[in-house]
């Protein structure tokens, strides 16, 4: 085993996430290689320091602020994506690029996808959930199909 291949797996080795054969091979390499052994010690110390930190409790409203931030970022990404598409269309050779640009401009910004399910697709799953919920001998939660798209 070379130092390069050990370097990428050191963290996983220290967390015990590798297979038994890999663990043994890396262990043998560390016994012979001062540089990798030193690197492993540094990572071990770092993990220990991080583990000794106190757990932080998020303040109230954190979840709502995070969700709002994600949603806002998503809208910004859509606008940026749209701008990039226009810019790219402008770079392409004149005739076809111009036609593409004009047609895209006239049709408006790209519509968000509908989520992939129509009302009828929900019916089967909902019916199954409803029916199973009428079962007095069922468990605490009604059983439904796990593959949402196939329902």
């Amino acid at each position: 085993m070379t130092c390069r291949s050990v370097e990428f797996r050191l963290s996983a080795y220290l967390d015990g996430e590798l297979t038994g054969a890999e663990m043994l091979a890396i262990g043998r390499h560390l016994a012979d290689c001062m540089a990798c052994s030193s690197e492993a010690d540094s990572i071990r110390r770092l993990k220990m320091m991080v583990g000794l930190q106190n757990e932080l409790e998020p303040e109230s409203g954190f979840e709502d602020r995070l969700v709002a931030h994600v949603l806002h970022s998503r809208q910004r990404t859509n606008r940026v994506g749209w701008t990039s598409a226009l810019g790219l269309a402008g770079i392409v050779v004149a005739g076809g690029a111009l036609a593409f640009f004009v047609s895209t401009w006239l049709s408006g910004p790209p519509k968000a996808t509908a989520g992939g399910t129509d009302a009828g697709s929900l019916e089967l799953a909902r019916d199954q959930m409803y029916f199973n919920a009428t079962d007095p001998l069922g468990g605490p939660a009604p059983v439904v199909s796990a593959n949402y798209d196939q329902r």
Partner: protein
Amino acid sequence: MERSKQIPVVAILYQRSVGGPSAAMQVKVEQKDGNIKVTILQPLSMAGVTSVDDGKNWRTYLPDQNRMLVQQSPRLQAQSIRERLALAEQNYQFTIERDTNIAGRRAACIAAIPRTKDMPLRRYYVDRETAILLRMETVVDNRQETQLDTKHIRFPKDMGPVDFQMKFFGEQPRRIDCPSPLKISSAPKAKPNLGFMPSIPSKLPMGFIVQQPQIAGGGEFRFAAIRLTDGLVNGTVYQWTGKQDDLPRAFRPQKGDKQAKGVWFRFVGDIPEPAKGQLLDLFVREAMKNTRLFVEPEQPNRVFKGLRNDLTGLIMLSMQIAAAEAQTGMTGMCAYSRNAKLL
């Protein structure tokens, strides 16, 4: 084993899917004073789907579509537990097996051994103190499959009403009021609503009965949902019509679906595939009978009776001809006729 809805419970459950590919899902269940909230944790494609049933209304929030489905609580149409148990006793033999420990709770094990070879053995693990179902297993071809398992369960003393509120991501979801399934009094009466006469056989194999034929769905697409049960297992035979391209995705033909006279049939329920096929074939056969395309062959007894009479007559005539030949010295029908003084 009836759901104990009054006991405050918070639980994380593992469930196998029914009606879809064989995959597992994890749900969180919170329950108190008749309110039940179920939040799907896994798979990722369904994470965040939340439903709350307060005994009157049942609301389901779909975060990806930003929709809220609202309909009447299914508990208002709860099946009769006495009828179910009576039927279950006919179709299964119950035994008590050794207790086990599930999610830190002592659970009694009740094994239901089917009286028909086509159905699997089932084991129900019930919490000794609260009678809540903690685990359910089936054994098919000596292979044990867990259908429901409790990973974590606790019974908190303090659980206020705020725990049953739904949290929405972003704007308020669009509300969609969904109709509850309608009961069908007879197959011909359902035809105007469905556009076809649903097939409802009077006799089913493996101890199953038709529990309740219903019309489900709403808006432009409606379908028949024939509810079956053998006391323990529930199943639904869905029937619908329509051009393949116009059908909602969930109703487009899948492996296992059958068709007769333009009507599609699908069985959804927790039973082995051969048993599903057996039940579906019966529904298809019933549908073919209703359309008079399937002609039953003449009863074999009547055919054989006629043939038997003909043969007997032939043998008797042969014997009479032989006797007449011996007496008259003539042959064949001449001898017979002379003997019978016909000539």
